[in-house]
């Protein structure tokens, strides 16, 4: 059972990059106290926008821009629904996921499949790798070293106390959600660019895996990066080990794909250290 280590490293990084971007998107939102299970739908919509615009203009950079715009708009919708209308954050996230699944499938069936045969020029993978790493570094510095980061955590831990101290939680949350949209836009564009075309539900639960990595990373940038790399490695190993025997018995691929979710359940059960969820998560 020989594994080409170099190839494994490259595929691990490739598979982790969209997770890192999306998980960091989840981080800015959740550290500001807004629960975000809408990551999946936001990534999916961004991927769809990237494909649509990328194919129409034959320019994937414009596709990336469209993905970012769609991501930011959807996350501002999440912000308006939860902050201005006061809808429960979980319900809003679910509604965004339902809307995104429907709308992207609608656009795909109705407009994408018609008359477009040319494949767009793919964006360089390395660009996204650098973007992901830069995002981890930047968010790490902002969270730990700046006044803005301190305010973000303060709002996420106790919105009422922040309000009394003169920090407006609502404004900070809209900003944090814009960052979430930006990062999910990058993540979706990367997934679309890697695939070269859009298929229904092409994010295939990566938004939830990103959420899982965020939880395992304790809502901190660097540990979240490591969790994403771990999940990327599992996915890469699974691709490399397909069909090979492990300890005499073949392990079904479904076991490997379930592994991130199982690890997250174990983490939620508190078997991997203490619960670090922001104290004000989900509060208005």
């Amino acid at each position: 059972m020989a594994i080409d280590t170099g190839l494994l490293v490259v595929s691990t990084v490739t598979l982790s990059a969209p997770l890192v971007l999306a998980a960091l998107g989840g981080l800015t939102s959740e550290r500001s106290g807004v629960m975000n299970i809408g990551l999946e739908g936001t990534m999916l919509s961004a991927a769809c926008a990237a494909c649509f615009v990328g194919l129409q203009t034959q320019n994937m950079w414009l596709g990336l821009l469209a993905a970012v715009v769609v991501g930011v708009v959807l996350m501002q919708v999440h912000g308006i629904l939860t902050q201005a209308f006061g809808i429960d954050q979980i319900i809003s996230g679910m509604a965004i996921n339902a809307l995104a699944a429907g709308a992207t499938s609608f656009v795909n069936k109705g407009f994408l499949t018609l008359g477009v045969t040319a494949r767009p020029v793919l964006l360089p993978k390395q660009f996204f790798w650098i973007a992901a790493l830069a995002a981890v570094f930047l968010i790490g510095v902002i969270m730990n070293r700046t006044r803005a980061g301190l305010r973000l955590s303060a709002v996420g831990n106790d919105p009422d106390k922040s309000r009394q101290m003169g920090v407006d939680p609502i404004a900070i949350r809209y900003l944090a959600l814009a960052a979430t949209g930006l990062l999910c836009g990058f993540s979706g564009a990367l997934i679309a660019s890697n695939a070269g075309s859009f298929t229904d539900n092409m994010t295939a639960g990566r938004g939830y895996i990103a959420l899982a990595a965020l939880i395992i990373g304790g809502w901190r940038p660097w540990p979240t990066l490591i969790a994403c790399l771990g999940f990327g490695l599992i996915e890469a190993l699974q691709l490399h080990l397909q069909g090979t025997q492990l300890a005499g018995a073949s392990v079904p691929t479904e076991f490997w794909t379930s592994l991130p979710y199982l690890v997250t359940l174990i983490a939620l059960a508190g078997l991997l250290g203490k619960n670090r969820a922001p104290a004000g998560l989900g509060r208005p």
Partner: protein
Amino acid sequence: MKGLGARHIALALLAFLLVWAAVVATKVPPSEAVRSFIDGSMGGPAAWRQTFREMTPLVVTGLAVFLALRAGLFNIGADGQLTMGAAAACHFALAFPGPTGLWLGSLAAMAAGAAWALPAGLIKAYRGGHEVISTIMLNNVAGFLTVWLAAGPMRDMKQQSPTTRLLDKGSFLPNLVEGGPFRLSLALLIGILGVAILAFWLKRTVAGYELSATGANPSAAETAGVNVRAVTIKAMMASGAIAGLAGAFLVQAFEHRFYANFSPGYGFDGLGVALLSGGSPWGLVPSAFLFAVLSSGTSSIQLTGVPKGLNGILLGLLIMVFASVRYRRSRTVGD
């Protein structure tokens, strides 16, 4: 808290405009789309058969989510519990042909659903881990596990796709009414009966009252002597058992087999059904009916050239508008 205002009307109008724009963008005449929608959901016996078929899993999963919601729990995991229930029901129906398989299958489905909800209940009760996250994870694991089951141990090798063989006719859940293309399954009646039982149970029993009290204010319930942990775990398991039964109904009354990627998302729609019920169990019936009409209507609308994705757009917007009116969280300070 602010009341209903112009902004709610604006939101509803915006949602309506979005749907309208989506239909117009497909260049299908809106009048034709609307007619096809109504014909496909309520125009004739075959359309009603389809609507009632869709309504059955929606009533039952709606019931499951509603029960958990009353206890203050978001059971996003109904989809996974339903899928596990369907697999269990199919296994027992295949192992024991005839009515035995029907009964054993139903019990096994409830047990499987409850077992699949248990980790989420335990994590919530003892570790404070959010049930939404744990049930999302459990959904994904259930998805992969059942794909493996349908493609491996349970597979009928004579079939091209990963599916089991057909159930013995004796293990079918019978139809109440059969006439021409029309069918009305006993499963729907059982589902509505379940709504009645839940309404009675919540209102008239101590356990039902304790469940609502826990959902309304857990610390007050704890002070009043309710074992909040026990209620949380039991509510989650009961919700899972009901969702599992929805899976059993799908196998026994409609599909008569189990296959990979079994649920098209009935569990998630169940959350929408429960939210739109307006806080009363009886509201589940019209709410499930509405979702069923949307589903069969948008299936039919495809023939005119409007993609089926319209269903997701409608559901998402419907939940947003309805939740903005009903499921608001009050602020304690500064509003």
